[in-house]
């Protein structure tokens, strides 16, 4: 099975977020970009499937600026067989539709039975790229998936996902695109020798000029970011003083009804 894993480097969870000087986007200065938790889960899932079906290949693919290379090396250190960096336009773009079109153009000629991604990226939380790629490639897609495994029938996959309706179990034919929900699979950590080896691993680069030629009229972003804003920090809780639990409960319920007005 040829498994593609979509990778997006995102700021470390503990990063201090700041707007760029023009106020339009996140200022990347001083931020460490890492392999997202969702992506680690996707790589783990790909490796588990590979271990189950010998001869399988895991191909990590990332669209964006040069920092993609480091995230791809992290995926290689975990066990991905090869990696492709799809270069973003030099002026930059955070439009998910353009990202999907660029990735789909790269994947058209790369073997893909199963394309795995996170349900959404931990930074912009759009979650559009995997399903948009599926539409461009003309294959089915499913988001919010947990517990993915090979189906009884060859050439298929089965999975469970939690939706508003409950726990759904699906059997779907390959090829397809899967957006993974959460770290249910406890991702492995890379071993030091593999990390060292990954530093020298070759990474295929697809130049923006090549993507531009492939996309022709569709190479324009469909959205632009205007403003990146940090909300005023919450000022801290109003603390409720009390002598008995009953008094605390009564005071809290009164505040919720009369001040916060969250229930009648």
């Amino acid at each position, binding site marked *: 099975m040829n498994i593609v894993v979509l990778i997006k480097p995102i700021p470390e969870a503990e990063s201090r977020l700041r707007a760029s000087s023009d106020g339009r986007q996140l200022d990347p200065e001083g931020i460490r970009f890492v392999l997202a938790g969702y992506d680690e889960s996707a790589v783990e899932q790909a490796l588990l499937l590979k271990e189950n079906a010998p001869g399988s290949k895991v191909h990590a693919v990332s669209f964006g600026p040069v920092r993609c290379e480091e995230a791809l090396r992290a995926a290689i250190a975990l066990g991905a067989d090869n990696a492709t960096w799809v270069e973003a336009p030099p002026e930059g773009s955070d439009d998910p539709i353009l990202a999907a079109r660029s990735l789909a153009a790269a994947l058209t000629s790369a073997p893909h039975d199963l394309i795995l991604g996170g349900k959404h990226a931990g930074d912009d939380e759009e979650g559009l790229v995997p399903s948009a790629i599926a539409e461009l490639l*003309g294959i*089915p897609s499913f*988001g919010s998936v947990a517990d993915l495994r090979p189906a009884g029938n060859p050439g298929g996959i089965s999975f469970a996902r939690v939706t508003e309706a*409950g726990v*759904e179990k699906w059997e779907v034919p390959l090829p397809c695109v899967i957006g993974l929900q959460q770290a249910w699979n406890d991702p492995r950590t890379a071993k030091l020798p593999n990390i060292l080896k990954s530093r020298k691993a070759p990474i295929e680069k697809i130049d923006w000029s090549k993507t531009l030629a492939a996309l022709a009229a569709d190479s324009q972003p469909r959205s632009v970011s205007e403003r990146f804003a940090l909300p005023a920090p919450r000022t801290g809780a109003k603390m*409720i003083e009390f002598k008995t639990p009953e008094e605390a409960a009564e005071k809290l*319920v009164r505040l919720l009804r009369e001040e916060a007005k969250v229930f009648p």
Partner: protein
Amino acid sequence: MTPSVLVLAESPAGAVSGPTKEAFGVARTLAGPDGSVAAVTTGGPAAAQALASFGPRDIWVADIPTESTTSGAVAALAARAAQESASAIVLVGGTTFGRDVVGRLAVRWGAAAATGVTEVTRTDSGELRVRRPVFGGRATETRTLLGPRAVIALRPHAFGAASEIVGTPAMHLLDRSVIPANEVAARRVSLASADGASGPPLPDATIVVSGGRGLRTAANFSLIEDLARSLGAAVGASRAVTDAGWRPPSLQVGQTGRAVSPQLYIAVGISGAIQHLVGMISSRTIVAINTDPSAPIFKVADYGIVGDALTLVPALTQEIRKVRGLS
């Protein structure tokens, strides 16, 4: 003429979902007095009938079994409806269903797209501008959607539900032949109601009560469930609770679990690690109960109580039952 705004409806078992009602409200605002609102559903005549109470002028309806309702099939049908209704905007509630369809529909229909949207406005030049929380609610971004068409998934609970309007919409049947052949082969083989299905599902709930390690044992976690029941709330949990196996992972709120944005979030015995905060910080009102006055959860909460969950939670359940006339 202002073109029509199309609502891609989710109407499980013929009932209109909360996020779909919100989408109708936003659609009316965007359409304005001169424009019109249309709806599309893949749930058959019963679903279409339910949608009629929200005043669309036209309803496009397909009847496909829920066992084979894939995002690809819905996107194909919705794109056809968008075309036939000459719409410029498609709105959908940001549920699992909605978020899965948006990217596909945008590609198929040649539109811009955005998800998790909490505000939609039109600029002076007529372009759509959306605001959306990013980084788990730690920041917001404002984007302009370019071009004449846009598909937008709205964040649940960010908008008011539309009022019902009496109307007699024109019904139009959608031809199932637009569904790609490889979508038909996918099958939902089973559906079980969500774990611990006493309350509403997490992403849908207007109130969420979450418990953490501060409850000390798996058995004590039932205090959280009692409180949730008194409020008609969904139950959530911190990662410590799901990792310890006290409750299933589907209840986990946070970076590796679900993100929720209810009207009221009550965190009990949860210290407030950043991994948890990113999953709930965009809740409107946050209440924290914790024994440790220096717990980071109190920095993001609106109301805080320092004390033991094991005595405070039963008292709170009792008080809520009292004011709601339940006991």
